[in-house]
């Protein structure tokens, strides 16, 4: 964890920084992809579509 790179930055910082960037990018992509309705439970739900789509008539 303490190995220093040529520019004086520790290796763990570079790895961590890259991971943080990937996660942030993923979050932004998900936010953009979700549209105006938000990151709703339908995205991960077991049923299809929105949670109210399988309501009985």
């Amino acid at each position: 964890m303490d190995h220093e790179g040529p520019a004086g930055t520790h290796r763990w910082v570079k790895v961590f920084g890259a991971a943080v960037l990937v996660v942030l990018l993923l979050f932004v992509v998900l936010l953009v992809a979700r549209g105006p309705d938000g990151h709703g439970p339908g995205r991960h739900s077991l049923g299809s579509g929105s949670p109210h789509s399988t309501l009985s008539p």
Partner: protein
Amino acid sequence: MTLSPGLRKFALTAHITSAVGWLGAVVAFLALGVVGLTSEDARTVRGVYLAMEPTAWFVLVPLAFASLLTGLVQALGTAWGLFRHYWVLFKLLITLFATIVLLTYMETFSVMADTAADPNAELAAVRSASPALHAALALLALLVAAVLAVYKPRGMTAYGRRRHARPR
């Protein structure tokens, strides 16, 4: 600004308590999420998703903010600073990110509770893998933050190096 030793210990206790409390609450949510997905009892499944929203408002959100605020006090009130060491900076980013995601997710808790409260909603519509998924990811993030806080890996930011080199 440096805190007095007594105040520093009090702030540290508050920070550890809130951060560990948040971690524990996330574990409880992971358990609830798994129960919601696997239980055969309809009342249990509905109860799980109904309980999540108020529990999140009264436990997760306050603990997240307490963890964030006490962490800021801890950083700014000690020689560690907020932007001097990479581990402090990454820990701040993790906590900030987890808090923002939690606040964004509160709407989802509300939608799931509404569905669970609807007697006409089928059980398949009530069940959702989302809370368990989010709780597992939150647990991972908070564990990384805890590891950073304990190991305090070396590495100063450019700002930290400048401050360190500056004669006092």
